[in-house]
C-alpha cells in the first residue's frame, strides 16, 4: 500500500518552504467510511498526515534525505471546516527551527472547493520532527533510510525535484 496523502509538490523554496496539493476523490475508500449527514468527510488526521509528508519532505530535503526524519509531535492543529469529495487541499509548510536533533515547522491548509477558483484558509498545523539518528536517547537505527522510500522519490520525480536527492536544486514542474 502506498501511504501517500499528497498528490503533487507545487512550490519549493530551498531550505525554507514546500507546498503540495491533495485532490480529495470519491474513488478513495476512506471517504466512504466517514459519512456525516450523508456527506463524505475527509478525517482531519489524514490532513495532518498530508502536512507531515509535505513538511517532512521539506525537512528531509535540507539534508539531501540523508537524515531519517520522523514526525515526533503534533504541536498544534486546528481545522475550521469539513473537507469533502471534489475539494482540493493545499498544504503550505515552512521551517520554523532546525538543528541536528530535529526541526519544527509551521503550516497552513487551504481549500479550493469543486468548481471554484479561490483558495480559503481552513487550518493550521505546527509539527515537530526528530532526526532519529541524533535522538536524545542515543538509540541506534538501521543505516538504510527507511523514511524516504520509493514513494517519496516518485513524488519528487513527478514535481521535477528528483535532483533534490542529489546535490543541485531545481524548480518544480508540477502545477495546480
Amino acid at each position, binding site marked *: 500500500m502506498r501511504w501517500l496523502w499528497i498528490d503533487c509538490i507545487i512550490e519549493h523554496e530551498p531550505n525554507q518552504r514546500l507546498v503540495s496539493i491533495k485532490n480529495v476523490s470519491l474513488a478513495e475508500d476512506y471517504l466512504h467510511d466517514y459519512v456525516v449527514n450523508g456527506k463524505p468527510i475527509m478525517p482531519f488526521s489524514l490532513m495532518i498526515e498530508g502536512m507531515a509528508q509535505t513538511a517532512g519532505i521539506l525537512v528531509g530535503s535540507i539534508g539531501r534525505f540523508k537524515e531519517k526524519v520522523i514526525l*515526533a*509531535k503534533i*504541536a*498544534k492543529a486546528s481545522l475550521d471546516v469539513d473537507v469533502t469529495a471534489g475539494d482540493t487541499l493545499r498544504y503550505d509548510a515552512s521551517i*520554523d*527551527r532546525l*538543528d*541536528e*536533533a*530535529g526541526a*519544527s515547522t509551521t503550516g497552513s491548509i487551504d481549500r479550493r472547493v469543486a468548481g471554484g477558483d479561490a483558495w480559503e484558509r481552513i487550518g493550521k498545523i505546527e509539527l*515537530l520532527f*526528530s532526526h532519529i539518528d*541524533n*535522538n*536524545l*536517547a*542515543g538509540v541506534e537505527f538501521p543505516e538504510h533510510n527507511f523514511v524516504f522510500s520509493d514513494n517519496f522519490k516518485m513524488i519528487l520525480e513527478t514535481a521535477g525535484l528528483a535532483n533534490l536527492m542529489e546535490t543541485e536544486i531545481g524548480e518544480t514542474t508540477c502545477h495546480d
Partner: protein
Amino acid sequence: MSRDDIFKKIQEVLDDALGVDEDEVTPEAILTADLGAESIDFLDIVFRLEKTFDFKISQGELFPENLTENEEWVTDNKLTDAGLDMLKERMTHVDFDAFAGGERDITTIGDLITVNSLVNFVELKLAG
C-alpha cells in the same frame, strides 16, 4: 529582563509545549513528573526558548543527553563522580547537590529539570 519576566515567558513556553495551565507551572515543578514532559518535548522546549529569547541552544546544553554512551560517566545506571563533575561544569543552571548525595540513579536525573532550572538557564544565557 528581570527574573520574574523570564519566569512569565517560560510559563507561556511550557503552556504551548506541554499544554499545561500556567498556574501548574510553579518554580518547583519538575518538567517530567509534574508537567508530563516526554523526551521529544525537550526538543520542542529548546526550539521555543530559542525563539522566545532569541539565542541558540546547543544539543546537551540545557538537558542532560546521551549520558549512558560514556562508561566514564555512568556505571550500572549510576552517575559516577566524573559524570557529576562533567554535568556540574556543563549545566550550571541545575542544582545537583541532593542528587549527588543520593543514589545517583541515572533514570531519575530528569527530575532535576525544574521550571526554576529553566529560569536559571535563561538568566545565565542572557547575562552572556
